[in-house]
Protein backbone atom coordinates (compact mmCIF):
# COMPACT_ATOMS: atom_id res chain seq x y z
CA UNK A 1 0.00 0.00 0.00
CA UNK A 2 1.27 3.47 -0.79
CA UNK A 3 2.49 5.58 2.14
CA UNK A 4 -0.44 7.96 1.54
CA UNK A 5 -2.95 5.20 2.16
CA UNK A 6 -1.01 3.94 5.20
CA UNK A 7 -1.31 7.41 6.75
CA UNK A 8 -4.98 7.70 5.72
CA UNK A 9 -5.80 4.40 7.40
CA UNK A 10 -3.82 5.37 10.47
CA UNK A 11 -5.72 8.65 10.73
CA UNK A 12 -9.05 6.83 10.47
CA UNK A 13 -7.95 4.29 13.03
CA UNK A 14 -6.94 7.06 15.41
CA UNK A 15 -10.34 8.72 15.25
CA UNK A 16 -12.13 5.39 15.66
CA UNK A 17 -9.95 4.22 18.54
CA UNK A 18 -10.31 7.49 20.36
CA UNK A 19 -14.05 6.91 20.46
CA UNK A 20 -14.82 10.23 18.82
CA UNK A 21 -16.93 8.53 16.19
CA UNK A 22 -18.73 6.47 18.79
CA UNK A 23 -19.69 9.56 20.79
CA UNK A 24 -20.66 11.43 17.65
CA UNK A 25 -22.82 8.60 16.30
CA UNK A 26 -24.52 7.97 19.64
CA UNK A 27 -25.47 11.64 20.00
CA UNK A 28 -26.50 11.83 16.35
CA UNK A 29 -28.84 8.86 16.70
CA UNK A 30 -30.31 10.49 19.83
CA UNK A 31 -30.82 13.75 17.91
CA UNK A 32 -32.47 11.90 15.02
CA UNK A 33 -34.85 10.08 17.37
CA UNK A 34 -35.81 13.31 19.17
CA UNK A 35 -36.29 15.32 15.98
CA UNK A 36 -38.31 12.47 14.41
CA UNK A 37 -40.61 12.58 17.42
CA UNK A 38 -40.91 16.33 16.99
CA UNK A 39 -41.77 15.98 13.28
CA UNK A 40 -44.36 13.34 14.14
CA UNK A 41 -46.17 15.94 16.31
CA UNK A 42 -46.58 18.46 13.48
CA UNK A 43 -49.85 16.99 12.09
CA UNK A 44 -51.37 17.23 15.56
CA UNK A 45 -50.94 21.03 15.57
CA UNK A 46 -54.23 22.92 15.45
CA UNK A 47 -55.26 26.40 14.42
CA UNK A 48 -58.37 27.71 16.24
CA UNK A 49 -59.20 24.14 17.23
CA UNK A 50 -58.94 22.82 13.67
CA UNK A 51 -56.03 20.56 12.66
CA UNK A 52 -53.72 22.32 10.19
CA UNK A 53 -54.05 21.22 6.56
CA UNK A 54 -51.58 18.68 5.24
CA UNK A 55 -49.95 21.18 2.87
CA UNK A 56 -49.22 23.50 5.77
CA UNK A 57 -47.84 20.65 7.85
CA UNK A 58 -45.45 19.83 5.03
CA UNK A 59 -44.36 23.46 4.76
CA UNK A 60 -43.64 23.55 8.49
CA UNK A 61 -41.75 20.26 8.14
CA UNK A 62 -39.65 21.68 5.29
CA UNK A 63 -38.61 24.69 7.38
CA UNK A 64 -37.96 22.61 10.47
CA UNK A 65 -35.87 20.22 8.41
CA UNK A 66 -33.67 23.11 7.28
CA UNK A 67 -33.11 24.05 10.93
CA UNK A 68 -32.33 20.47 11.92
CA UNK A 69 -29.93 20.11 9.01
CA UNK A 70 -28.33 23.40 10.02
CA UNK A 71 -27.59 21.76 13.35
CA UNK A 72 -26.09 18.71 11.60
CA UNK A 73 -24.01 20.87 9.29
CA UNK A 74 -22.67 22.70 12.33
CA UNK A 75 -21.86 19.46 14.12
CA UNK A 76 -20.08 18.32 10.98
CA UNK A 77 -18.23 21.63 10.65
CA UNK A 78 -17.12 21.64 14.30
CA UNK A 79 -16.09 17.98 14.17
CA UNK A 80 -14.11 18.55 10.97
CA UNK A 81 -12.29 21.45 12.64
CA UNK A 82 -11.66 19.50 15.86
CA UNK A 83 -10.15 16.51 14.09
CA UNK A 84 -8.23 18.44 11.41
CA UNK A 85 -6.54 21.20 13.40
CA UNK A 86 -4.46 18.86 15.61
CA UNK A 87 -3.91 16.28 12.84
CA UNK A 88 -0.43 17.53 11.88
CA UNK A 89 0.49 19.88 14.73
CA UNK A 90 -0.29 17.19 17.31
CA UNK A 91 2.12 14.76 15.64
CA UNK A 92 4.82 17.43 15.54
CA UNK A 93 4.34 18.52 19.14
CA UNK A 94 4.25 15.00 20.57
CA UNK A 95 7.22 13.78 18.54
CA UNK A 96 5.25 11.08 16.72
CA UNK A 97 6.15 12.85 13.46
CA UNK A 98 9.89 12.31 14.03
CA UNK A 99 9.72 8.55 13.70
CA UNK A 100 7.12 8.70 10.92
CA UNK A 101 8.75 11.33 8.71
CA UNK A 102 12.17 9.68 8.90
CA UNK A 103 10.65 6.81 6.91
CA UNK A 104 10.68 6.83 3.09
CA UNK A 105 7.64 9.09 2.85
CA UNK A 106 7.25 12.58 1.42
CA UNK A 107 5.64 15.42 3.30
CA UNK A 108 3.00 15.60 0.55
CA UNK A 109 2.11 11.94 1.10
CA UNK A 110 1.81 12.59 4.82
CA UNK A 111 -0.53 15.58 4.37
CA UNK A 112 -2.65 13.94 1.66
CA UNK A 113 -2.88 10.78 3.76
CA UNK A 114 -4.21 12.75 6.72
CA UNK A 115 -6.62 14.60 4.44
CA UNK A 116 -7.92 11.38 2.89
CA UNK A 117 -8.50 9.71 6.25
CA UNK A 118 -10.39 12.73 7.56
CA UNK A 119 -12.31 13.15 4.30
CA UNK A 120 -13.60 9.57 4.55
CA UNK A 121 -14.80 10.46 8.02
CA UNK A 122 -16.57 13.64 6.89
CA UNK A 123 -18.24 11.88 3.98
CA UNK A 124 -19.29 8.93 6.12
CA UNK A 125 -20.70 11.05 8.91
CA UNK A 126 -22.54 13.44 6.60
CA UNK A 127 -23.99 10.63 4.52
CA UNK A 128 -25.08 8.48 7.46
CA UNK A 129 -26.47 11.26 9.67
CA UNK A 130 -28.30 13.16 6.91
CA UNK A 131 -29.69 10.03 5.26
CA UNK A 132 -30.99 8.70 8.58
CA UNK A 133 -32.60 12.05 9.37
CA UNK A 134 -34.25 12.29 5.93
CA UNK A 135 -35.52 8.71 6.21
CA UNK A 136 -36.84 9.30 9.71
CA UNK A 137 -38.71 12.47 8.69
CA UNK A 138 -40.11 10.74 5.63
CA UNK A 139 -41.25 7.83 7.77
CA UNK A 140 -43.11 9.92 10.38
CA UNK A 141 -44.61 12.67 8.26
CA UNK A 142 -44.18 11.56 4.64
CA UNK A 143 -42.05 14.56 3.64
CA UNK A 144 -38.93 14.39 1.50
CA UNK A 145 -37.11 17.55 0.37
CA UNK A 146 -36.91 18.07 -3.40
CA UNK A 147 -33.20 17.35 -3.98
CA UNK A 148 -31.84 15.10 -1.19
CA UNK A 149 -28.79 13.82 -3.10
CA UNK A 150 -27.63 17.31 -4.02
CA UNK A 151 -28.19 18.31 -0.42
CA UNK A 152 -25.74 15.58 0.67
CA UNK A 153 -23.23 16.87 -1.84
CA UNK A 154 -23.36 20.42 -0.44
CA UNK A 155 -23.20 19.20 3.15
CA UNK A 156 -20.13 17.07 2.41
CA UNK A 157 -18.47 19.89 0.46
CA UNK A 158 -18.93 22.26 3.40
CA UNK A 159 -17.33 19.69 5.72
CA UNK A 160 -14.43 19.19 3.31
CA UNK A 161 -13.82 22.94 3.07
CA UNK A 162 -13.47 23.23 6.85
CA UNK A 163 -11.43 20.06 7.11
CA UNK A 164 -8.97 21.28 4.46
CA UNK A 165 -8.76 24.72 6.03
CA UNK A 166 -8.19 23.15 9.47
CA UNK A 167 -5.41 20.99 8.05
CA UNK A 168 -3.72 24.04 6.54
CA UNK A 169 -3.76 25.78 9.93
CA UNK A 170 -2.45 22.58 11.50
CA UNK A 171 0.77 22.80 9.50
CA UNK A 172 1.81 25.88 11.49
CA UNK A 173 -0.40 26.34 14.55
CA UNK A 174 -1.17 24.18 17.56
CA UNK A 175 -4.51 22.38 17.52
CA UNK A 176 -6.14 24.77 19.96
CA UNK A 177 -5.08 27.96 18.18
CA UNK A 178 -5.93 26.56 14.75
CA UNK A 179 -9.30 25.34 16.02
CA UNK A 180 -10.26 28.70 17.48
CA UNK A 181 -9.20 30.54 14.31
CA UNK A 182 -11.08 28.14 12.05
CA UNK A 183 -14.25 28.43 14.12
CA UNK A 184 -14.14 32.23 14.29
CA UNK A 185 -13.68 32.45 10.52
CA UNK A 186 -16.46 29.91 10.02
CA UNK A 187 -18.76 32.12 12.11
CA UNK A 188 -17.64 35.22 10.26
CA UNK A 189 -18.34 33.58 6.91
CA UNK A 190 -21.85 32.79 8.08
CA UNK A 191 -22.34 36.38 9.22
CA UNK A 192 -20.82 37.61 5.97
CA UNK A 193 -23.54 35.72 4.12
CA UNK A 194 -26.22 37.49 6.18
CA UNK A 195 -24.53 40.87 5.67
CA UNK A 196 -24.40 40.24 1.92
CA UNK A 197 -28.11 39.38 2.00
CA UNK A 198 -28.87 42.65 3.77
CA UNK A 199 -26.86 44.49 1.12
CA UNK A 200 -28.93 42.77 -1.58
CA UNK A 201 -32.14 43.60 0.23
CA UNK A 202 -31.32 47.31 0.45
CA UNK A 203 -29.62 47.49 -2.93
CA UNK A 204 -26.32 48.46 -1.30
CA UNK A 205 -23.60 47.25 -3.61
CA UNK A 206 -20.71 47.65 -1.15
CA UNK A 207 -22.40 45.66 1.59
CA UNK A 208 -23.44 43.06 -0.93
CA UNK A 209 -19.81 42.71 -2.00
CA UNK A 210 -18.82 41.93 1.59
CA UNK A 211 -21.08 38.91 1.39
CA UNK A 212 -19.68 37.87 -1.97
CA UNK A 213 -16.10 38.27 -0.70
CA UNK A 214 -16.68 36.09 2.36
CA UNK A 215 -18.32 33.45 0.17
CA UNK A 216 -15.17 33.41 -1.95
CA UNK A 217 -12.62 33.55 0.88
CA UNK A 218 -14.16 30.75 2.95
CA UNK A 219 -16.90 29.09 0.93
CA UNK A 220 -18.72 27.48 3.86
CA UNK A 221 -21.74 29.81 3.84
CA UNK A 222 -21.96 29.73 0.06
CA UNK A 223 -22.17 25.94 0.20
CA UNK A 224 -24.61 26.06 3.10
CA UNK A 225 -26.93 28.27 1.03
CA UNK A 226 -26.63 25.68 -1.73
CA UNK A 227 -27.66 23.02 0.76
CA UNK A 228 -30.61 25.15 1.92
CA UNK A 229 -31.82 25.60 -1.66
CA UNK A 230 -31.94 21.83 -2.20
CA UNK A 231 -34.19 21.52 0.86
CA UNK A 232 -36.71 24.16 -0.21
CA UNK A 233 -39.99 22.99 -1.74
CA UNK A 234 -41.38 25.08 -4.64
CA UNK A 235 -44.09 26.50 -2.37
CA UNK A 236 -41.51 28.12 -0.09
CA UNK A 237 -39.62 29.62 -3.00
CA UNK A 238 -42.84 31.09 -4.39
CA UNK A 239 -43.78 32.43 -0.96
CA UNK A 240 -40.35 34.00 -0.39
CA UNK A 241 -40.34 35.61 -3.80
CA UNK A 242 -43.54 37.37 -2.82
CA UNK A 243 -41.89 38.92 0.25
CA UNK A 244 -39.18 40.61 -1.83
CA UNK A 245 -35.38 40.60 -1.68
CA UNK A 246 -35.21 41.30 2.09
CA UNK A 247 -35.80 37.58 2.65
CA UNK A 248 -32.32 36.85 1.27
CA UNK A 249 -30.73 38.03 4.52
CA UNK A 250 -32.33 35.04 6.26
CA UNK A 251 -29.50 32.52 6.72
CA UNK A 252 -31.96 29.64 6.38
CA UNK A 253 -33.14 30.67 2.96
CA UNK A 254 -31.63 30.65 -0.52
CA UNK A 255 -33.48 32.21 -3.47
CA UNK A 256 -31.45 30.28 -6.05
CA UNK A 257 -28.87 27.51 -6.30
CA UNK A 258 -25.23 28.62 -6.33
CA UNK A 259 -24.16 29.34 -9.93
CA UNK A 260 -22.00 26.68 -11.59
CA UNK A 261 -18.87 28.90 -11.68
CA UNK A 262 -19.14 29.18 -7.90
CA UNK A 263 -19.03 25.38 -7.59
CA UNK A 264 -15.95 25.37 -9.81
CA UNK A 265 -14.46 28.04 -7.55
CA UNK A 266 -15.13 25.85 -4.49
CA UNK A 267 -13.37 22.89 -6.11
CA UNK A 268 -10.40 25.09 -7.03
CA UNK A 269 -10.40 26.54 -3.51
CA UNK A 270 -10.19 23.05 -2.01
CA UNK A 271 -7.33 22.05 -4.31
CA UNK A 272 -5.44 25.29 -3.71
CA UNK A 273 -5.76 25.17 0.09
CA UNK A 274 -4.65 21.53 0.15
CA UNK A 275 -1.68 22.44 -2.05
CA UNK A 276 -0.87 25.31 0.29
CA UNK A 277 -1.03 22.92 3.26
CA UNK A 278 1.41 20.56 1.52
CA UNK A 279 3.75 23.43 0.71
CA UNK A 280 3.61 24.77 4.25
CA UNK A 281 4.17 21.36 5.84
CA UNK A 282 7.08 20.62 3.49
CA UNK A 283 8.82 23.67 4.89
CA UNK A 284 8.00 22.86 8.48
CA UNK A 285 10.82 21.35 10.52
CA UNK A 286 10.06 18.37 12.69
Amino acid at each position, binding site marked *: *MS*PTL*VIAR*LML*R*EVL*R*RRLILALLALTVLAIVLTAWGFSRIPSLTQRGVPIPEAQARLIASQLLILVMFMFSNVLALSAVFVATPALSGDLE*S*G*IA*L*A*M*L*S*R*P*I*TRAQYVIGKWLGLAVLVVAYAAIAATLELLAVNAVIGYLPPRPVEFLGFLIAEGLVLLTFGLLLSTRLSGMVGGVIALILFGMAWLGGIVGGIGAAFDNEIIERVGTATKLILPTDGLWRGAVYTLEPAAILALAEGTGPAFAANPFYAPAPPPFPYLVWCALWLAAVLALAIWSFS*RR*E*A
Partner: protein
Amino acid sequence: MTDAAIETVDLAKRYGTLTALAGLTMSIPRGDVFGFLGPNGAGKTTAVKLLLGLARPTSGDAYLLGAPLREPDAHRQARRKVGYLPELFRYQGWLTAREVLGVHAELLGLPKHEWDSEAVRVATVAGIADRANDRVATYSKGMQQRLGLACALLGRPELVMLDEPTSALDPVGRHDVREIIRGLKADGHTVFLNSHLLSEVEQVCDRVAIVDKGRVVTSGTFAELLAGDTVRLRLTGLDGADLSRFGTADREGEWVTIRGIHAERIPDLVAEVVRLGGRVHAVQPMQESLEDRFLGLLREQ
Protein backbone atom coordinates in the same frame (compact mmCIF):
# COMPACT_ATOMS: atom_id res chain seq x y z
CA MET B 1 29.02 10.19 -4.33
CA THR B 2 30.62 8.72 -1.29
CA ASP B 3 30.95 5.25 0.14
CA ALA B 4 30.78 6.38 3.75
CA ALA B 5 27.64 5.60 5.76
CA ILE B 6 27.41 9.24 6.71
CA GLU B 7 29.31 12.15 5.29
CA THR B 8 28.83 15.81 6.08
CA VAL B 9 30.58 18.78 4.56
CA ASP B 10 30.44 22.02 6.48
CA LEU B 11 26.88 21.23 7.54
CA ALA B 12 25.40 24.15 9.45
CA LYS B 13 22.08 25.02 11.00
CA ARG B 14 21.13 28.38 12.42
CA TYR B 15 17.84 29.37 14.02
CA GLY B 16 17.85 33.15 13.71
CA THR B 17 20.90 34.24 15.66
CA LEU B 18 21.29 30.91 17.42
CA THR B 19 23.81 28.55 15.87
CA ALA B 20 22.74 24.97 16.52
CA LEU B 21 25.37 23.42 14.29
CA ALA B 22 28.38 25.32 12.97
CA GLY B 23 30.00 23.68 9.99
CA LEU B 24 30.07 19.98 10.79
CA THR B 25 32.45 18.00 8.60
CA MET B 26 32.83 14.30 9.24
CA SER B 27 32.83 10.92 7.57
CA ILE B 28 31.65 7.71 9.18
CA PRO B 29 32.75 4.50 7.45
CA ARG B 30 30.24 1.73 6.96
CA GLY B 31 30.29 -0.89 9.69
CA ASP B 32 31.51 1.49 12.37
CA VAL B 33 29.89 2.11 15.71
CA PHE B 34 30.31 5.84 15.91
CA GLY B 35 29.77 7.85 19.06
CA PHE B 36 28.64 11.44 18.74
CA LEU B 37 29.44 12.76 22.14
CA GLY B 38 28.73 16.13 23.62
CA PRO B 39 27.02 17.99 26.43
CA ASN B 40 23.33 18.82 26.23
CA GLY B 41 22.67 21.49 23.61
CA ALA B 42 25.88 20.75 21.68
CA GLY B 43 23.97 20.23 18.41
CA LYS B 44 23.88 16.43 18.38
CA THR B 45 20.14 16.08 17.80
CA THR B 46 20.20 18.88 15.22
CA ALA B 47 22.83 16.96 13.27
CA VAL B 48 20.69 13.81 13.26
CA LYS B 49 17.58 15.72 12.19
CA LEU B 50 19.48 17.34 9.32
CA LEU B 51 20.85 13.98 8.19
CA LEU B 52 17.35 12.47 8.17
CA GLY B 53 15.75 15.40 6.35
CA LEU B 54 13.59 16.30 9.35
CA ALA B 55 15.13 19.78 9.39
CA ARG B 56 16.76 21.71 6.57
CA PRO B 57 20.37 22.84 6.79
CA THR B 58 21.19 26.54 6.55
CA SER B 59 24.28 25.63 4.52
CA GLY B 60 26.55 22.72 3.75
CA ASP B 61 26.01 19.25 2.38
CA ALA B 62 25.35 15.81 3.77
CA TYR B 63 25.18 12.31 2.38
CA LEU B 64 23.19 9.50 3.93
CA LEU B 65 24.41 6.10 2.70
CA GLY B 66 25.77 7.95 -0.30
CA ALA B 67 22.53 9.77 -1.08
CA PRO B 68 22.83 13.57 -1.06
CA LEU B 69 20.47 15.52 1.15
CA ARG B 70 19.94 17.88 -1.79
CA GLU B 71 18.25 15.15 -3.84
CA PRO B 72 14.97 14.40 -2.08
CA ASP B 73 14.11 11.27 -4.08
CA ALA B 74 17.51 9.63 -3.62
CA HIS B 75 17.53 10.65 0.04
CA ARG B 76 14.07 9.16 0.55
CA GLN B 77 15.18 5.87 -1.00
CA ALA B 78 18.25 5.84 1.27
CA ARG B 79 15.98 6.24 4.30
CA ARG B 80 14.58 2.79 3.50
CA LYS B 81 17.86 1.46 4.88
CA VAL B 82 17.97 3.66 7.97
CA GLY B 83 16.48 3.02 11.39
CA TYR B 84 16.05 5.93 13.79
CA LEU B 85 15.28 6.20 17.47
CA PRO B 86 14.52 9.88 18.17
CA GLU B 87 15.55 11.54 21.39
CA LEU B 88 11.90 12.54 21.79
CA PHE B 89 10.45 9.07 21.34
CA ARG B 90 6.67 8.99 21.07
CA TYR B 91 4.51 6.47 19.28
CA GLN B 92 0.79 6.26 18.61
CA GLY B 93 -0.69 5.56 22.05
CA TRP B 94 -3.96 4.29 20.62
CA LEU B 95 -2.18 1.45 18.82
CA THR B 96 -0.57 -1.66 20.23
CA ALA B 97 3.20 -1.92 19.92
CA ARG B 98 2.71 -4.62 17.32
CA GLU B 99 0.48 -2.33 15.28
CA VAL B 100 2.98 0.53 15.52
CA LEU B 101 5.68 -1.80 14.23
CA GLY B 102 3.31 -2.99 11.51
CA VAL B 103 2.72 0.60 10.33
CA HIS B 104 6.46 1.26 10.20
CA ALA B 105 7.09 -2.03 8.38
CA GLU B 106 4.52 -0.97 5.82
CA LEU B 107 6.02 2.50 5.44
CA LEU B 108 9.43 0.91 5.00
CA GLY B 109 8.03 -1.10 2.13
CA LEU B 110 8.79 -4.52 3.62
CA PRO B 111 6.95 -7.39 1.91
CA LYS B 112 3.57 -7.96 3.55
CA HIS B 113 4.31 -11.50 4.72
CA GLU B 114 7.24 -10.16 6.74
CA TRP B 115 5.40 -7.44 8.64
CA ASP B 116 4.29 -9.51 11.57
CA SER B 117 7.32 -11.80 11.84
CA GLU B 118 9.61 -8.79 11.65
CA ALA B 119 7.54 -6.95 14.28
CA VAL B 120 7.79 -9.94 16.61
CA ARG B 121 11.54 -10.28 15.96
CA VAL B 122 12.40 -6.68 16.81
CA ALA B 123 10.00 -6.63 19.76
CA THR B 124 11.86 -9.65 21.11
CA VAL B 125 15.27 -8.06 20.56
CA ALA B 126 14.13 -4.86 22.30
CA GLY B 127 12.60 -6.83 25.17
CA ILE B 128 8.94 -5.87 24.75
CA ALA B 129 7.65 -9.07 23.12
CA ASP B 130 5.54 -10.08 26.11
CA ARG B 131 3.68 -6.76 26.01
CA ALA B 132 3.61 -6.28 22.24
CA ASN B 133 -0.17 -6.65 22.13
CA ASP B 134 -0.79 -3.90 24.71
CA ARG B 135 -1.64 -0.37 23.75
CA VAL B 136 1.38 1.91 23.74
CA ALA B 137 -0.52 4.38 25.96
CA THR B 138 -0.16 1.87 28.82
CA TYR B 139 3.65 1.71 28.40
CA SER B 140 6.15 3.24 30.82
CA LYS B 141 8.71 5.64 29.40
CA GLY B 142 11.34 2.92 29.42
CA MET B 143 9.03 0.57 27.51
CA GLN B 144 8.30 3.30 24.97
CA GLN B 145 12.01 3.82 24.44
CA ARG B 146 12.40 0.08 23.92
CA LEU B 147 9.57 0.27 21.37
CA GLY B 148 11.47 3.09 19.64
CA LEU B 149 14.53 0.88 19.57
CA ALA B 150 12.49 -1.97 18.09
CA CYS B 151 11.21 0.46 15.45
CA ALA B 152 14.77 1.49 14.61
CA LEU B 153 15.79 -2.14 14.12
CA LEU B 154 12.88 -2.97 11.83
CA GLY B 155 13.89 -4.38 8.46
CA ARG B 156 17.55 -4.83 9.47
CA PRO B 157 18.63 -1.33 8.35
CA GLU B 158 22.17 -0.72 7.14
CA LEU B 159 22.44 2.34 9.34
CA VAL B 160 20.91 2.67 12.80
CA MET B 161 20.78 6.15 14.30
CA LEU B 162 20.16 6.19 18.03
CA ASP B 163 19.64 9.52 19.74
CA GLU B 164 20.26 9.15 23.50
CA PRO B 165 18.91 5.58 23.38
CA THR B 166 19.13 4.90 27.10
CA SER B 167 17.79 8.16 28.52
CA ALA B 168 14.70 6.48 29.99
CA LEU B 169 16.21 3.10 30.77
CA ASP B 170 17.31 1.50 34.03
CA PRO B 171 20.74 -0.19 34.34
CA VAL B 172 19.37 -3.46 32.96
CA GLY B 173 17.93 -1.60 29.98
CA ARG B 174 21.22 0.20 29.41
CA HIS B 175 23.04 -3.09 29.41
CA ASP B 176 20.51 -4.51 26.94
CA VAL B 177 21.04 -1.55 24.60
CA ARG B 178 24.80 -2.04 24.69
CA GLU B 179 24.31 -5.70 23.82
CA ILE B 180 22.00 -4.77 20.94
CA ILE B 181 24.58 -2.31 19.60
CA ARG B 182 27.31 -4.96 19.82
CA GLY B 183 25.01 -7.36 17.99
CA LEU B 184 24.44 -4.78 15.25
CA LYS B 185 28.16 -4.30 14.88
CA ALA B 186 28.75 -8.04 14.68
CA ASP B 187 26.20 -8.22 11.86
CA GLY B 188 27.99 -5.44 9.96
CA HIS B 189 25.51 -2.61 10.58
CA THR B 190 26.65 0.96 11.01
CA VAL B 191 25.53 2.57 14.25
CA PHE B 192 25.44 6.29 14.88
CA LEU B 193 25.10 6.80 18.61
CA ASN B 194 24.24 10.21 19.98
CA SER B 195 24.98 10.39 23.66
CA HIS B 196 26.12 12.51 26.52
CA LEU B 197 26.90 9.38 28.52
CA LEU B 198 30.64 8.84 28.34
CA SER B 199 30.60 5.30 29.71
CA GLU B 200 27.99 4.25 27.17
CA VAL B 201 30.07 5.54 24.28
CA GLU B 202 33.29 4.20 25.74
CA GLN B 203 31.88 0.69 26.04
CA VAL B 204 30.50 0.24 22.53
CA CYS B 205 31.97 2.71 20.08
CA ASP B 206 34.89 2.21 17.68
CA ARG B 207 35.26 5.88 17.02
CA VAL B 208 33.98 9.02 18.56
CA ALA B 209 33.54 12.70 17.76
CA ILE B 210 33.28 15.14 20.62
CA VAL B 211 31.02 18.08 19.83
CA ASP B 212 30.44 21.27 21.70
CA LYS B 213 28.57 24.45 20.75
CA GLY B 214 27.80 23.07 17.31
CA ARG B 215 31.41 22.16 16.45
CA VAL B 216 33.42 18.98 16.42
CA VAL B 217 36.12 19.56 19.00
CA THR B 218 38.02 16.39 18.20
CA SER B 219 37.43 12.97 16.70
CA GLY B 220 39.15 9.67 16.22
CA THR B 221 39.51 6.21 17.73
CA PHE B 222 39.80 5.90 21.48
CA ALA B 223 43.46 5.00 21.14
CA GLU B 224 44.04 8.21 19.20
CA LEU B 225 42.02 10.37 21.54
CA LEU B 226 43.28 8.94 24.77
CA ALA B 227 46.90 8.37 23.79
CA GLY B 228 48.69 7.89 27.09
CA ASP B 229 52.07 9.51 27.66
CA THR B 230 52.64 8.32 31.21
CA VAL B 231 53.88 5.03 32.60
CA ARG B 232 54.24 3.79 36.19
CA LEU B 233 56.83 1.18 37.14
CA ARG B 234 57.48 -0.66 40.38
CA LEU B 235 61.23 -1.11 40.63
CA THR B 236 63.73 -2.42 43.13
CA GLY B 237 67.53 -2.49 43.13
CA LEU B 238 67.94 0.72 41.19
CA ASP B 239 68.87 3.48 43.57
CA GLY B 240 69.62 6.88 42.05
CA ALA B 241 69.75 5.77 38.40
CA ASP B 242 68.98 8.52 35.90
CA LEU B 243 65.96 7.83 33.70
CA SER B 244 65.38 11.45 32.67
CA ARG B 245 66.12 10.81 29.01
CA PHE B 246 62.78 8.95 28.83
CA GLY B 247 60.75 11.75 30.43
CA THR B 248 60.26 13.49 33.73
CA ALA B 249 60.57 10.92 36.49
CA ASP B 250 58.93 11.03 39.93
CA ARG B 251 59.84 8.57 42.60
CA GLU B 252 57.52 7.49 45.39
CA GLY B 253 58.91 4.52 47.31
CA GLU B 254 59.23 1.64 44.86
CA TRP B 255 56.98 3.36 42.29
CA VAL B 256 58.46 5.54 39.56
CA THR B 257 56.19 7.62 37.33
CA ILE B 258 57.62 8.71 33.97
CA ARG B 259 55.65 11.45 32.16
CA GLY B 260 56.03 12.52 28.54
CA ILE B 261 57.11 9.13 27.25
CA HIS B 262 55.87 7.82 23.94
CA ALA B 263 54.20 4.42 24.26
CA GLU B 264 56.66 3.00 21.70
CA ARG B 265 59.59 3.68 24.03
CA ILE B 266 58.25 1.79 27.06
CA PRO B 267 60.11 -1.47 26.12
CA ASP B 268 63.34 0.54 25.78
CA LEU B 269 62.76 2.00 29.23
CA VAL B 270 62.28 -1.47 30.73
CA ALA B 271 65.43 -2.76 28.95
CA GLU B 272 67.42 0.18 30.31
CA VAL B 273 66.22 -0.47 33.88
CA VAL B 274 67.24 -4.13 33.57
CA ARG B 275 70.61 -3.16 32.05
CA LEU B 276 71.24 -0.94 35.06
CA GLY B 277 70.61 -3.90 37.36
CA GLY B 278 67.09 -3.00 38.43
CA ARG B 279 64.27 -5.52 38.90
CA VAL B 280 60.92 -4.69 37.26
CA HIS B 281 57.85 -5.82 39.24
CA ALA B 282 55.14 -3.94 37.35
CA VAL B 283 54.66 -1.72 34.29
CA GLN B 284 51.41 0.28 34.09
CA PRO B 285 50.79 2.52 31.08
CA MET B 286 48.43 5.23 32.38
CA GLN B 287 45.59 6.19 30.12
CA GLU B 288 43.64 9.36 30.56
CA SER B 289 39.98 8.53 31.08
CA LEU B 290 37.50 9.63 28.44
CA GLU B 291 35.89 11.75 31.10
CA ASP B 292 39.14 13.62 31.86
CA ARG B 293 39.75 14.14 28.17
CA PHE B 294 36.15 15.23 27.56
CA LEU B 295 36.14 17.71 30.41
CA GLY B 296 39.58 18.97 29.43
CA LEU B 297 38.47 19.59 25.86
CA LEU B 298 35.30 21.37 26.90
CA ARG B 299 37.28 23.57 29.28
CA GLU B 300 39.68 24.47 26.49
CA GLN B 301 36.74 25.68 24.39
